[in-house]
C-alpha cells in the first residue's frame, strides 16, 4: 500500500536528485574557461531532456524489468510507460510508494550518471556526438549495469551491495569517462597551459547544490522515510565533511595552502565514496570512509599527469577512484545492525573477507564492462560523425562554435545588430 510519509519523502528525494544535475553543471561549468561554460552547462541540462525520454521509453524497463532474475538485463515489460502507474508496482519491488514515483526517482539517476562524464571530456566534445553518445550509453551500458545491481541481476544475487550507486553510478560513469577520453584525446595545449577555472563561485554553488541533492540521492535510496534513510542522511553528511577535511589536509601538507576548489572536490569525493555505503554503515565509519576518499582522490588526480590522459575536471580521479574506494570500504565497514539487508558484515566488524570479495567482483565487472562498451560506442560515433570539435572550434570555445552564444556580457561594448 502507498504510504503517505514514504511518498512524501520520495517525491522530495526525486526533486533533490533532479536538482543535482544543474548542480553538477555549475560545479563543472565554473571549472572550465569562460569560452566553454555554456558548452558544459548545455551538456548537463540536455541530459535532463534526452535521458528522461530514453528512460521511460526503454531504459527503465531494461533496468528493472524481470526484477530479481539474477540476470544480465531486464525485459520490455515497462517500456513506453506500460504498467508504470500509481499502484505500488509488482510485489517483488516491495514498494510503499507509487510505482510511477519509483520510475521517476530512478530516472534522476539515469540523468545524472551520463552527465558525470562531461567533466572528463570538457572543452572538446562535439555537442551532437555527445547527444548520440549518451542516448546509446544509457541503453547499452547504464541499463544493464543498473539491472545487475539495482534490478536484482547477477551482482545483487551474488551478494554485492551498493546502496545508492557506487558501482552503477560512479564506477560506471568514471570508467566511461576514461573510455571516451581515450578516443577524444587531450585538449589543445594541455598539460603545458593551466586551464584554470573561470568562476570558482559557480563551482562552489554547484558543490552546495550537489551536497544538498545528495541527501535525496543516498537517503532516498532507502525508498522510504525510515531509520535507514535517516542513517543514510547522517552518513552522507559526515562523509562529505570528512572528505573535505581530508583533501584540505593533504593540500596543506603538500602545498601549504588549502584551496576552495579542494574543499569542493574533497566534499564530492566523500560523497562519492559514501554512496554505496550510505545505508549500510553507522557510527563513525562514514567519517573514516569520507576521509580516506578525500585523501585518496587528491592524490589520484595527479595520475593524469603521470599517464598523460586529459581527464579535464577529474572525473576519473574523483568518481572512478572514489567510487572504487567506497565500494571496497563497504567490505570493511558494512554493519548488519544498521541494515538487515547486510548478511555478511564488513571485515572490520568481524565479517571476514566475503563481502569485500563480492564488492571487488562487482567493481571490476562494472569497470571493465563500462570501459569496453563505452569505448566501442565512442569509436563508432567517432567514425560515423566525428566525436571531437575542430581545432578552430576548440580555440574559439564551445559556446561560440557549438551554440552560437556567449556566456557573459558585462560590458558596454557588446552590441549586436539583428540580421534579416
Amino acid at each position, binding site marked *: 500500500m502507498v504510504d503517505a510519509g514514504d511518498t512524501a519523502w520520495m517525491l522530495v528525494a526525486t526533486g533533490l536528485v533532479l536538482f543535482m544535475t544543474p548542480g553538477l553543471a555549475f560545479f563543472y561549468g565554473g571549472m572550465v574557461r569562460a569560452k566553454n561554460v555554456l558548452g558544459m552547462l548545455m551538456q548537463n541540462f540536455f541530459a535532463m531532456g534526452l535521458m528522461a525520454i530514453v528512460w521511460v521509453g526503454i531504459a527503465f524497463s531494461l533496468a528493472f524489468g524481470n526484477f530479481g532474475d539474477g540476470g544480465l538485463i531486464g525485459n520490455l515489460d515497462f517500456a513506453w510507460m506500460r504498467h508504470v502507474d500509481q499502484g505500488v508496482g509488482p510485489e517483488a519491488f516491495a514498494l510503499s510508494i507509487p510505482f510511477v514515483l519509483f520510475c521517476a526517482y530512478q530516472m534522476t539517476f539515469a540523468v545524472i550518471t551520463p552527465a558525470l562524464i562531461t567533466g572528463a571530456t570538457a572543452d572538446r566534445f562535439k555537442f551532437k556526438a555527445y547527444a548520440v553518445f549518451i542516448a546509446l550509453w544509457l541503453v547499452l551500458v547504464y541499463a544493464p549495469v543498473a539491472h545487475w545491481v539495482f534490478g536484482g541481476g547477477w551482482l545483487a544475487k551474488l551478494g554485492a551491495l551498493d546502496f545508492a550507486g557506487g558501482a552503477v553510478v560512479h564506477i560506471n560513469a568514471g570508467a566511461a569517462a576514461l573510455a571516451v577520453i581515450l578516443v577524444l584525446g587531450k585538449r589543445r595545449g594541455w598539460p603545458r597551459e593551466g586551464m584554470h577555472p573561470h568562476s570558482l563561485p559557480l563551482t562552489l554553488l554547484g558543490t552546495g547544490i550537489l551536497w544538498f541533492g545528495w541527501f535525496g540521492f543516498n537517503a532516498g535510496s532507502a525508498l522510504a522515510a525510515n531509520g535507514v534513510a535517516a542513517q543514510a542522511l547522517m552518513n552522507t553528511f559526515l562523509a562529505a565533511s570528512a572528505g573535505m577535511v581530508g583533501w584540505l589536509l593533504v593540500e596543506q601538507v603538500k602545498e601549504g595552502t588549502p*584551496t576552495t576548489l579542494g574543499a569542493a572536490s574533497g566534499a564530492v569525493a566523500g560523497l562519492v565514496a559514501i554512496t554505496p555505503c550510505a545505508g549500510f554503515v553507522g557510527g563513525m565509519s562514514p567519517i573514516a570512509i569520507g576521509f580516506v576518499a578525500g585523501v585518496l582522490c587528491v592524490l589520484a588526480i595527479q595520475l593524469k599527469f603521470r599517464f598523460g590522459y586529459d581527464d579535464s575536471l577529474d572525473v576519473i580521479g574523483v568518481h572512478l577512484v572514489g567510487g572504487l574506494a567506497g565500494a571496497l570500504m563497504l567490505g570493511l565497514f558494512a554493519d548488519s545492525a544498521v541494515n538487515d539487508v547486510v548478511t555478511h558484515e564488513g571485515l572490520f566488524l568481524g565479517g571476514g573477507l566475503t563481502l569485500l570479495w563480492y564488492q571487488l567482483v562487482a567493481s571490476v565487472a562494472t569497470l571493465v564492462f563500462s570501459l569496453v562498451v563505452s569505448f566501442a560506442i565512442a569509436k563508432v560515433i567517432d567514425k560515423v560523425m566525428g566525436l571531437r570539435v575542430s581545432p578552430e572550434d576548440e580555440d574559439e570555445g564551445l559556446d561560440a562554435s557549438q551554440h552560437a552564444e556567449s556566456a557573459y556580457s558585462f560590458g558596454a561594448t557588446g552590441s549586436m545588430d539583428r540580421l534579416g
Partner: protein
Amino acid sequence: MKLVTAIIKPHKVDDVKEALKAAGLHGMTVDEVKGFGRQGGKTEIYRGAEYVVDLLPKVRVETVVPDELADQVADIMVAAARTGKIGDGKVWITTVDKVIRIRTGELGDDAV
C-alpha cells in the same frame, strides 16, 4: 599637449587620483590592464599543481596635460604611486598633436 601614461599598482589608483586632484588637474582616464615585468608572477594552486600567473593586475592612468605641466604631472604620479617594491610600474610621456573636447569642440589647453 602631452599625454602622460602611468602603469601602476591597482590599490594606488585612489592615491594617484587624489594627488592629481590636489595639483588642480581636472581629468584622467583609467583602465585595468595586466603587466608583465621584473616583478615575476604569483603562484596559484590548481588541482594540487602550482602555476605561475605572470600577468599581474595593473592599472593604466592616462591624462592629457599642457606641455609645461607634463614633467610635473609625471613626477606627481611617480610620487603617489610609489611603494618602493618591485612592480610599481612606469610613467611615460608622449606628444599629442591636438586635443578636442567633444561637448564643446574646444581645442588644446581649453579642452582638458
